[in-house]
């Protein structure tokens, strides 16, 4: 989700060698480790992968990336299977552990970069996985050619076989894999298939491990069961940066099954987080006993330095900061002159709240720390981060820490941070036992790296033709980069305002200005970081400009986005942004929903579109608002342009899910603080939307563009909320400028 050094797409050069061996089951493993030097960086990164071809022709493909519901465990093996040329229904998958290797220059990847965030899981492996499959296929061809005594050039493949038409012969891969593994790797990278020839990629396939999910067999992190495992929970400080002054565990210790109680030290205020909070750990023979033990603790808290933090104070501070002048991040053209010469000025403020990630599987981690090694099993988006967290907690070298990662019960950016891994490792180290640390929902709602909240002031100056000549976005917010190691204050704005986002390079005189609010709430990457806030603000403001200047909201967008052309885009998702792709999408959704028809009072259609980390999406939403303020979403049209859809079924699912996430969050979700304490605790006061909110008239469309896939996990969310609030305005004339919508429609 955030741009992170470990997400930099691999720039593969040449494969160096190929190894093979027999597995325990007697099947052959065809491993294709790569060694590739990153251009300019000078560090050699060892990348690896494996394919197993069983004697009966079944193929097991290793998956090296965390599956958080985005479909990567299906999509990446599709790429390998396509180039390898095997039947998809013969493929199964095997999750791989974290692979890191110590070198003279530090740690490097063994199985390729592992980690999912920023919608890069697919794009950063697109070339890599295809080359793995193509190389293996090439080896199999060479092995067959050698056996037949002919040139490899006269051979080809059909699914699972090497074929020589002139000889009229074919050999199954399963018979060739041993020979293939002993051959050197071709000097030239084998050519990759034409997209037009794909049989697997780009076609509708189901989630490869769905049957295990619907039968309850899938093991998530929370389902880890290991010999002698004990269960732990932590009573964390309810005060931001608070600490236990003293605690009385005498009652807790009397509970049958409570084994140990001890203090856990959190980071000093202002210091980077390894874990989120100080607290008291309870270890017991079962989860429930540990929770009972925790309930029985009597803890006196030192409220710490943030005891006076409150949402009220936060919003007041933001408003007063906007009275002054802030850090100017972008200053194109002559903004002041454009505003001074404007025929009309439109100006509004918008507030976006803190929100919780709330993955449905609460944080948990299995850790077993022994004298010279440690085993971690965690639901994580960033297994290498898990390894670092465990190393921090245990003092062990990372090569002695084995990290397995499970299918993850939701990520949304929360599990880019491995604080719960560090906690579990601390507890296991202290007790010497294998530990499953379990967070309750209350722990998760109250202890998170929340989506940053902020107050946005928007101002636009229009000339006599209704064209926008000057534009500013002034944001007072709590930056996501707060308390990051080695993060200078002057960079804090970059996490919250992306310099090259629309309308940069479209509106000539443009200024972005930032004010940082250092409230003590931890914050982090929340699905489509900054984009969810900025799409709401900008797409609402465009609507307001249109209404206040007598223009049509659709036409104004079309005029601004314009024709296809590549604009420079320096941030994650670049190097270019083609606003014409938004024109196409917004026109498409408008047409599908029959935009422009006359609607009765109380019914309205709203539109929005946004460019997110390389991908494009648009929404059209139709609502009815009753006289009492009852909101009903009648129809949703969502469309995505992700370049090329590798795994269209998952693209559609992500678009549906992102749309639902955006609407659910806009409708009712907000984290607030009072007296330095988070006010919400569970789903009764953090009410995720349920099925009844979403109509059956809900279309999700994929509009293919070219042969280059973009990510898809985050693109579906940003334009959903503004399409909804724009629809509410169209229906009622009521403009939502503060999220969540909650009861603002009640009259």
């Amino acid at each position, binding site marked *: 989700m955030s741009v992170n050094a470990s997400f930099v797409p691999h720039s593969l050069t040449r494969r160096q060698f190929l190894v093979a061996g027999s597995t325990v089951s007697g099947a052959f493993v065809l491993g294709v480790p790569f060694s590739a030097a990153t251009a300019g960086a000078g560090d050699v990164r060892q990348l690896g992968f494996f394919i197993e071809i069983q004697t009966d022709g079944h193929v097991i493909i290793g998956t090296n990336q965390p599956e958080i519901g985005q479909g990567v465990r299906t999509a990446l093996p599709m790429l390998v299977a396509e180039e390898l040329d095997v039947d998809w229904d013969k493929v199964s998958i095997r999750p791989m552990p974290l692979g890191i290797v110590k070198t003279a220059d530090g740690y490097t990847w063994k199985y390729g970069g592992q980690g999912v965030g920023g919608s890069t899981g697919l794009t950063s492996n697109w070339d890599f996985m295809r080359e793995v499959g193509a190389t293996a296929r090439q080896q199999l061809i060479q092995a067959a050619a050698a056996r037949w005594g002919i040139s490899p050039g006269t051979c080809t493949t059909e699914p699972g076989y090497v074929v020589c038409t002139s000889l009229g012969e074919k050999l199954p891969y399963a018979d060739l894999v041993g020979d293939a593994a002993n051959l050197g790797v071709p000097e030239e990278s084998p050519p990759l298939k034409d997209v037009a020839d794909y049989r697997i990629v780009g076609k509708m396939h189901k*989630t490869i491990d769905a049957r295990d999910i619907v039968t*309850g067999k899938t093991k998530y992190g929370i389902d880890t069961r290991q010999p002698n495992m004990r269960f732990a929970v932590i009573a964390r400080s309810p005060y931001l940066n608070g600490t236990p002054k003293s605690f009385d565990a005498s009652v807790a210790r009397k509970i049958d099954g409570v084994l140990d109680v001890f203090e856990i030290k959190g980071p000093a205020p202002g210091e980077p987080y390894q874990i989120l909070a100080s607290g008291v750990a309870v270890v017991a023979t079962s989860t429930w006993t540990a929770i009972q033990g925790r309930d029985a603790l009597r803890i006196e808290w030192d409220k710490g330095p943030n005891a006076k933090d409150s949402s009220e104070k936060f919003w007041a501070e933001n408003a007063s900061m906007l009275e002054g002048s802030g850090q100017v991040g972008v200053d194109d053209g002559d903004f002041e002159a454009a505003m001074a010469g404007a025929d009309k000025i439109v100006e509004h403020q918008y507030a976006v709240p803190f929100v919780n990630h709330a993955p449905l599987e609460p944080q948990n981690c299995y850790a077993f720390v022994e004298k010279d090694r440690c085993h971690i099993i965690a639901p994580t988006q960033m297994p290498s981060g898990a390894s670092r967290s465990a190393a921090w907690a245990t003092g062990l070298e990372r090569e002695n820490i084995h990290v397995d990662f499970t299918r993850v019960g939701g990520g949304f950016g929360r599990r880019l941070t491995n604080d719960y891994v560090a906690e579990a490792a601390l507890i296991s180290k202290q007790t010497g036992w294998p530990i499953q640390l379990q967070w309750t929902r209350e722990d998760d709602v109250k202890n998170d790296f929340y989506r940053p909240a902020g107050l946005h002031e928007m101002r636009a100056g229009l000339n006599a033709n209704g064209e926008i000549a000057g534009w500013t976005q002034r944001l007072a917010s709590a930056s996501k980069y707060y308390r990051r190691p080695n993060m200078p204050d002057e960079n804090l704005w970059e996490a919250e305002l992306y310099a090259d986002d629309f309308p940069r390079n479209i509106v000539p005189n443009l200024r972005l200005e930032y004010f940082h609010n250092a409230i003590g709430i931890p914050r982090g990457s929340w699905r489509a970081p900054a984009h969810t806030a900025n799409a709401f603000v900008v797409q609402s403001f465009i609507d307001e400009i249109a209404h206040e200047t007598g223009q049509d909201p659709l036409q104004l967008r079309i005029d601004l986005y314009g024709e296809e052309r590549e604009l420079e885009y320096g941030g994650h998702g670049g190097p270019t942004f083609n606003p014409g792709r938004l024109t196409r999408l917004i026109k498409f959704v408008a047409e599908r929903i029959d935009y422009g028809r006359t609607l009765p009072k109380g019914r309205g259609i709203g539109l929005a579109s946004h460019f997110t980390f390389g991908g494009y999406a648009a929404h059209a939403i139709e609502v009815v608002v009753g006289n009492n303020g009852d909101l009903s979403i009648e129809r949703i049209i969502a469309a995505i342009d992700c370049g090329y859809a590798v795994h269209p079924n998952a693209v559609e699912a992500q678009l549906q899910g992102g749309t639902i996430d955006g609407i659910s969050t806009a409708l009712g979700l907000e984290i607030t603080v009072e007296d330095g304490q988070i006010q919400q605790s569970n789903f009764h006061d953090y009410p995720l939307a349920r*099925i009844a909110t979403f109509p059956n008239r809900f279309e999700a469309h994929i509009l293919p563009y070219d042969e280059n896939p973009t990510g898809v996990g985050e693109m579906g969310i940003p334009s959903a909320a503004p399409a909804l609030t724009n629809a509410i305005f169209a229906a009622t004339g009521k403009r939502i400028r503060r999220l969540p919508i909650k009861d603002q429609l009640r009259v």
Partner: protein
Amino acid sequence: MISFQVNSENVAFDGDGSTPLLWVLRDHFNLTGTKFGCGIGQCGACTVHINGAARRSCMTPVAAIKGRSVTTIEGLAAGNDELHPVQAAWLEYDVPQCGYCQAGQIMATVDLLQRIPKPTDADIDKNIRNICRCGTYARIRKAIHKAAELQAEGGSDVS
């Protein structure tokens, strides 16, 4: 000692009777298909059947099920290699994203279809109150209608 049945087997729990059934299933019987999401009856991830009716196991003290029969997602289908029609419908529409809520969604749907064999969208809205954080609701809705059809067609398990 609290005796009851889980997936047609006789079992006994020898601990604190106030322990929620959820944790007894997960920690004592290693039946981890039933999930913990909220612990307060809000999300439905922990939904099981008690004497055939959907219940939130996080809100059910194990003492309360003495002598009763519990079905979990692991025991829903008639046989090991078979699928309940609701599971089959879930696969047909490829409902799961992260998948974490889906056992609960399926258990809730089986119960719904027992009460209302051919639910309307409004019936679904009213009766399916389980949370899916990934937002699979669009596919859940289709899969529920499909499951209703599959059950009407035969009601027997498919493999």
